[in-house]
């Protein structure tokens, strides 16, 4: 040990000698620094030699003199509020540097890397950053949307158009399978880990920067929770100097982005009649045209003037001794669908402060508080009773509200029991009840009326307090305590209701749910930064303790209260003294603690910022691991080289900077459900109980659920990444990454032989692989009066399940099912995760002889029940029957490519921003129509379905009962291309001239007009091709299944930025 240490010291000494030899030849450079805008010289600007610690500041006239070694070839000139600039050391003579007002120069940026920051120029991992400046003036409410389209490697799809709805975030594809949440990246806000669902509390205006740690080497510092990637968010801090007051706000209206062409009453009657007559059944609607246009259910629930508003005011400032940033935000959104029950309100308060009473110590806190209140329409992408699904499937003949009870007698409840349960409008009318389309399809107006007033609420406090002590130069001891506290719940009342013969609510239900959660963590780090000569070393060591899922909930339900509406309902028993005790139910749950403790260390080293190295290791112990595997080690290493810094690299004006890097890192996933999966839990009740004697009482039985698996451990993800960062023509930044990510030990409960007698137990079995390419491009140039900025990124990825369960060739884990089609997806070993799995069709039979001639090799008719107009299903097995074995992989719901593009233009006081993003390579399952309800309404494209006189049609014939199974088999007929490009924002702004506003003490006053979601380019014929994994769709862990998704909105907003 000791000998090795000595060896290291000698090696260091050797470098020292090298360094001193190198610095032997110094030269002196002189120059001036001035402002480009007004030509004034800048005193106090920093001029440093890149890759060394040699630096000076300019005098009051902007002059400087600096002595640098010959190895130094680039000087970095920086000044507060200005963009730093790099200039080549001239062969001779002095230099003159003109600095521009803060635009961005990627090189000098500092990126947050987890437990510290690093200059972007020396970063060796694959980290994408999004800064406040990129996000300002975007009317984004949730943080996931802030990232959408901004960086490579992220695929983000909103879960619904409901205000405040979360989005599905996947970093570099699917890392694992099983529980949906396992693929959500880890969100770390000012060092506090917040689960994916909990990120909604954060106000985008408070964000200073977001860093996406994409490669394993960067993410490994978060160890066993980093496998699905890490997103670091840093909130804004105050800066020493003048007090700053900023106001950002916007107000506007929204409308549904799209309305579908759906059959009106006459068209519906026509379609139904043709389906019936094709089946030889009597017509249901003898005179289709007599029904007119009927009810437009979409129009009935859509709001074309839904308001949307957001205000934030922030005050920041400070001195050398202390800084602060405080803000107050208010957001109020109204949904474009069923506005009365689709609302989102949020209030934010933030205080971030820092005190530095002495040179060696500073302390402070970052604290965000949020209060939210929202109402949701319920299931947003679900065909069983979702509001949108009901609007699309209900017949347009039924009136929304029955004003004429004589003419529309068929649409009101038919007997007294139903009358009393039926909902009425405020003025006493019945809501129309469809006699044609039943089951879960409800009159959406009635549904809205019955859900008025219900809401969810939450209060979140997320923050940390920290102290930094720096006893000697370069050494920082950092200690932080972070917490997330949340109080949340919901209040709801469901009245007795009669929706149709098969859907009614017989018992009213008044529910109050209250919950709280306190998660906390303690982290202590010690870091030491030292430069000796051209060697720059930063060492970090730390430990952390974490506790989460420390949650409690309690729910109280009163049934059969004598109330009709939410407002009337109350829990006060003095009002309901007659309410028997058995109608008052309560239940409660406890979360099972999840604890992690960690040790980690990191070495960052660079030589002249030319040769770069980072190595780190984290050891995590988790309460979810088995006794033999309590601790996991997650090492990583990454290296970089900046050839443009080499002496041999030719000086040129094309390639200004190039960095190549490579990394390898191991990360883990400890989301193991259920808790205590590693011990042999003895369960009670359920299929263990038995009764003895004549009393009929049940004895509770106890028996083990599954044997112990002491080897249960984390899923392990290894990522190899190679990449490069380049700056070209002093204006173009370019990044490229290629990666391979393999996850092993994916948790599965494999089927085990029944003779064991016990249940299956979680084991680390599955393996998955992701490969991908990522490109990021930035361009910024001033051309005369016009400043042009372009930022673009594009990512490609490929996913493959390399190992599944023993003895199984495929997996149907978390795959979607669709009504009577059954499962619609599968994962084949060697194929991509959760692909669409169904029949292929080979056109439409045009004549009976085509049907008759569609025979197997043995001459057996393959589709004897088909008739002209039905789909011809491919007989992939080449046997005598079309059956489930003929199914195959017919599409991929997961986008394989995603991209984003931002264009900024500025001309004098005008600015213009266009931002769009998209994804592609995937298919969407268009499941808007309920297949099991033959009478459900149709999109108008079905008017053009196959008939004997319309033989060129793309859609097979419509016939009642579908005997030919054209629609009742899952074929690629249901799949549509998911490619899209969505223009997300178009914005034009005008800043009042400084000369004018400075009279009012104003630094900045900008007004803008913005259109959100102006257009989408897609071939998809549903509302929106962007369909995330919706937790309430009941559809498993899948993108791209459209069951009637909540339509996104297009907004027209006016906004104001004011700064003092």
């Amino acid at each position: 040990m000791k000998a090795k240490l000595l060896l290291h010291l000698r090696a260091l000494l050797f470098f020292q000698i090298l360094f001193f030899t190198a610095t032997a030849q110094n030269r002196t450079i002189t120059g001036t620094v001035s402002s480009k805008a007004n030509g004034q010289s800048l005193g106090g600007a920093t001029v440093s030699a890149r890759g060394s610690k040699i630096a000076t500041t300019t005098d009051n006239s902007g002059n400087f003199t600096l002595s640098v070694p010959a190895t130094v070839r680039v000087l970095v000139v920086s000044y507060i509020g200005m963009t730093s600039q790099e200039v080549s050391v001239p062969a001779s003579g002095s230099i003159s540097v003109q600095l521009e007002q803060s635009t961005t120069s990627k090189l000098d940026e500092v990126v947050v890397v987890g437990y510290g920051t690093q200059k972007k120029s020396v970063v060796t991992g694959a980290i994408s950053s999004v800064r406040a400046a990129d996000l300002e003036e975007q009317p984004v409410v949730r943080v996931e949307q802030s990232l959408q389209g901004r960086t490579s490697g992220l695929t983000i799809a909103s879960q619904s158009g409901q205000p405040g709805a979360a989005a599905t975030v996947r970093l570099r594809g699917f890392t694992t399978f099983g529980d949906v949440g396992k693929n959500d990246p880890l969100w770390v806000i000012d060092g506090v880990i917040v689960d994916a669902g909990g990120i909604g509390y954060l106000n985008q205006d408070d964000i200073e920067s977001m860093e996406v740690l994409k490669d394993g080497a960067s993410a490994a510092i978060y160890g066993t929770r980093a496998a699905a990637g890490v997103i670091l968010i840093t909130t804004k801090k105050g800066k020493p100097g003048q007090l700053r007051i900023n106001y950002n706000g916007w107000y506007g209206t929204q409308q549904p982005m799209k309305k579908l062409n759906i059959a009106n009453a006459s068209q519906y009657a026509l379609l139904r009649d043709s389906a019936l007559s094709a089946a030889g059944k009597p017509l249901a609607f003898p005179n289709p045209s007599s029904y007119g246009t009927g009810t437009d259910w979409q129009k009935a629930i859509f709001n074309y003037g839904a308001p949307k508003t957001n205000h934030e005011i922030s005050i920041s400032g400070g001195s050398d001794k202390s800084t602060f940033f405080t803000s107050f935000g208010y957001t109020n959104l109204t949904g474009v669908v069923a506005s009365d029950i689709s609302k989102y309100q949020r209030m934010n308060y933030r205080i971030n402060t820092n005190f530095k009473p002495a040179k060696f110590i500073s302390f402070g806190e970052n604290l965000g508080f949020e209060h939210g209140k929202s109402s949701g329409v319920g299931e947003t992408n679900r065909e069983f009773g979702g509001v949108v699904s009901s609007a699309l499937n209900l017949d347009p003949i039924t009136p929304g509200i029955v004003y004429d009870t004589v003419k529309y007698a068929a649409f009101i409840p038919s007997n007294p029991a139903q009358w009393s349960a039926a909902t009425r409008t405020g003025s006493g009318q019945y809501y129309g009840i469809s006699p044609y389309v039943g089951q879960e399809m409800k009159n959406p107006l009635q549904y809205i009326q019955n859900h008025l007033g219900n809401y969810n609420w939450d209060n979140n406090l997320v923050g940390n307090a920290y102290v930094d002590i720096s006893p000697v130069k370069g050494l920082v001891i950092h200690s932080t305590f972070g917490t997330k506290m949340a109080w949340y719940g919901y209040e709801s009342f469901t009245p007795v209701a009669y929706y149709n013969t098969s859907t009614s609510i017989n018992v009213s239900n008044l529910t109050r749910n209250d919950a709280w959660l306190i998660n906390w963590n303690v982290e202590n780090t010690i870091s030491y930064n030292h430069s000796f000569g051209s060697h720059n070393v930063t060492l970090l060591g730390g430990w952390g303790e974490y506790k989460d899922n420390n949650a409690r909930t309690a729910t109280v339900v009163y049934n059969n209260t004598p109330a009709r509406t939410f407002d009337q309902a109350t829990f006060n028993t003095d009002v309901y003294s007659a309410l028997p005790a058995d109608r008052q139910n309560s239940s409660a749950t406890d979360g099972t603690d999840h604890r992690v403790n960690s040790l980690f260390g990191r070495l960052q080293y660079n030589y002249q910022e030319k040769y770069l190295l980072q190595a780190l290791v984290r050891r995590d112990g988790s309460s979810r691991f088995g006794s033999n595997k309590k601790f996991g080690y997650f090492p990583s290493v990454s290296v970089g080289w900046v050839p443009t810094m080499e002496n041999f690299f030719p000086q040129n004006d094309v390639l200004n900077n190039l960095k190549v890097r490579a990394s390898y890192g191991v990360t883990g996933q400890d989301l193991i459900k259920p808790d205590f999966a590693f011990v042999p839990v003895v369960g009670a009740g359920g299929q263990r109980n038995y009764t003895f004697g004549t009393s009929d009482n049940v004895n509770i039985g106890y028996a083990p659920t599954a044997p112990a698996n002491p080897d249960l451990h984390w899923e392990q993800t290894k990522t190899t990444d190679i990449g490069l960062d380049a700056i070209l023509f002093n204006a173009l930044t370019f990044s490229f990454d290629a990666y391979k990510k393999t996850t092993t030990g994916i948790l599965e409960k494999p089927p085990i032989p029944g003779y064991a007698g016990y249940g299956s137990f979680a084991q680390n079995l599955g393996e998955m692989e992701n490969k991908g390419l990522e490109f990021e491009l930035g361009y910024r140039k001033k051309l005369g009066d016009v400043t042009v900025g372009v930022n673009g990124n594009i990512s490609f990825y490929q996913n493959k399940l390399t190992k599944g369960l023993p003895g199984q060739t495929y997996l149907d884990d978390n795959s979607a099912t669709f009504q009577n089609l059954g499962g619609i997806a599968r994962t084949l070993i060697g194929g991509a995760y959760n692909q669409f799995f169904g029949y292929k069709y080979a056109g439409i039979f045009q004549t009976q002889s085509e049907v008759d001639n569609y025979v197997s090799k043995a001459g057996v008719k393959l589709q004897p029940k088909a008739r002209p107009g039905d789909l011809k299903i491919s007989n992939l097995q080449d046997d005598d029957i079309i059956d489930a074995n003929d199914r195959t992989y017919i599409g991929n719901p997961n986008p394989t490519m995603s991209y984003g593009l931002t264009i900024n233009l500025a001309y004098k006081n005008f600015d213009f921003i266009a931002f769009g993003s998209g994804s592609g390579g995937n298919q969407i399952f268009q499941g808007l129509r309920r297949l099991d309800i033959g009478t459900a309404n149709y999109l108008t494209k079905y008017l053009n379905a196959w008939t004997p006189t319309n033989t060129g049609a793309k859609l097979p014939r419509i016939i009642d009962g579908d005997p030919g199974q054209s629609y009742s088999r899952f074929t690629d007929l249901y799949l549509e291309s998911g490619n899209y490009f969505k223009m997300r924002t178009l914005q034009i702004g005008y800043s009042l001239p400084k000369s004018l506003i400075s009279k009012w003490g104003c630094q900045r006053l900008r007004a803008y007009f913005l259109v959100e979601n102006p257009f989408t380019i897609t071939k998809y014929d549903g509302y929106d091709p962007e369909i995330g994994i919706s937790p309430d769709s009941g559809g498993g862990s899948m993108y791209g299944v459209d069951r009637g998704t909540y339509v996104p909105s297009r907004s027209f907003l006016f906004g104001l930025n004011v700064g003092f």
Partner: protein
Amino acid sequence: MKKNLVYIAAIALGTQLLGSCKKELNVNDQGRQTTDTYYKTPADAFAALVAVYDRFGFQTGGLYDKVAINDVAGGDQVAGGGSATDINDLQVMQTWTLSSTSGPEGYVWNRSYTGIYRANILLSKIDGCGLDAATRTRYIAELKAMRGAFYFDLVWYFKNVPLLTGVLPIDSLYSVVQAPPADVYAYAEADLQAAIPNLPQTVNIASEGGRLTQGGAKAILGKMFLYEKKWQQAADMLKDVNGTNPGVSPSVYGYSLLPKFADLWKSSNKYNSESVVEFAHTTKSNGGWSDAGASDGNLLCIITGPRGYSVVKDSVAPDYYSGYSFLMFTKDFANAMYGDPRYAATVANMDSLVAVNHAKYNGAAAYGNTGFYLNKFMGHASDVANVSSTKELNFGQDEYEIRLGDTYLQEAEALMNAGADVTAGSRAYQLFNAVRARVGLNAIAVTQANIEHERWMELAGEGQRYPDLVRWGKAATVLAGRGFVAGRHEIFPIPQSELNNTKLQQSKEWGGTK
């Protein structure tokens, strides 16, 4: 030296940090019990015993049990239900299209093996439970008796099954092989023999009805001997159950035939004098649709009920609870039984009820409706649980695994085959004709044909017909019309899921090598 001290301090601190953390990771288990912390008190042992009994009387969440399987397989009943695939596991028993991937074999297999596992784990832990000697002895006897019964089922249905005599460790999960059938029979016999002397002669039925007794274990063993054609042993074993003076006075265990045959099927008639081994059901288990298999209600009661049944006002029709129209008798069977005094208690002729305008039901919705319903189990509205939970899954009527009418006929058959005297006045004659006399039938000779007919009539709809036909060697002829294949359908295929990755082999009858 000073430097060394620093290193030592650093290493010491480092190991401290590394070592100290593990304890922090042990989170509050919130009352969860593990196999190490449980099985410590008499109450734990009782609850673990209850879990074994649960398997004893277990009905699958797929809404059937052994009775339903054997009923359909026996040829006198159709699966019925709502469609050709409704409870498909029963439908395939009607058409004999069961296979290793489709059919009720998984239920039969898992019920027994889960029961065996639960028995084995309690047997391995029982010494730590602090039981008094008598209770411990009794529990062990009950566990062994049930384990013997589970193995009897397994070996009879599947022939080639693994014999697990203890808890299977996870590292030998996939290395288990099948045992020779004779070994399994021998093991089951030994289990039951060991249990018998330690079981109580009788139990207090109010508190312990349903717990195994000496008579019950002997009846199981006797039946097993009968199935093995060990005639004399069967007769000897069943003799104690049936008593010295069958049909006249109760046996030492208190067993005697109920005077009224129809009373056997009254929900309230639990643990009556004819009940030898009974599967208990209750109205109070709050069974729900999320896990119908967890219900301790009798699921036969709901599946056998007629669809859309309603009583016409002021009529005297039975108050059947509308059900799903399963397990209907064929017209042939109804005709064959018509005239037998047990007919009314056995067969509910729905169409005659409709014809006299006493009731209505939706026969059209019943798949393959015959109109002849299984009266022994049909749920009655008056028996519906007075609970707010899912009523249809919480009927309280028990099932007889073995009743005295059955053991009388079994012993008579065993005696006859063992070559004992069967003439009038013989014990076999007495046994056989006691069953007939109870329903008012005159005495007839004890012959194979008469015994077969009597069992057919007496035990119709009770899941005895299929095993009887198989052991009499008549299944192939009687069931030929339904697609029964001789040399195959006498046993069930080993479920495919048991063959995946294991050393188990499919039986030869099912195209395998075992």
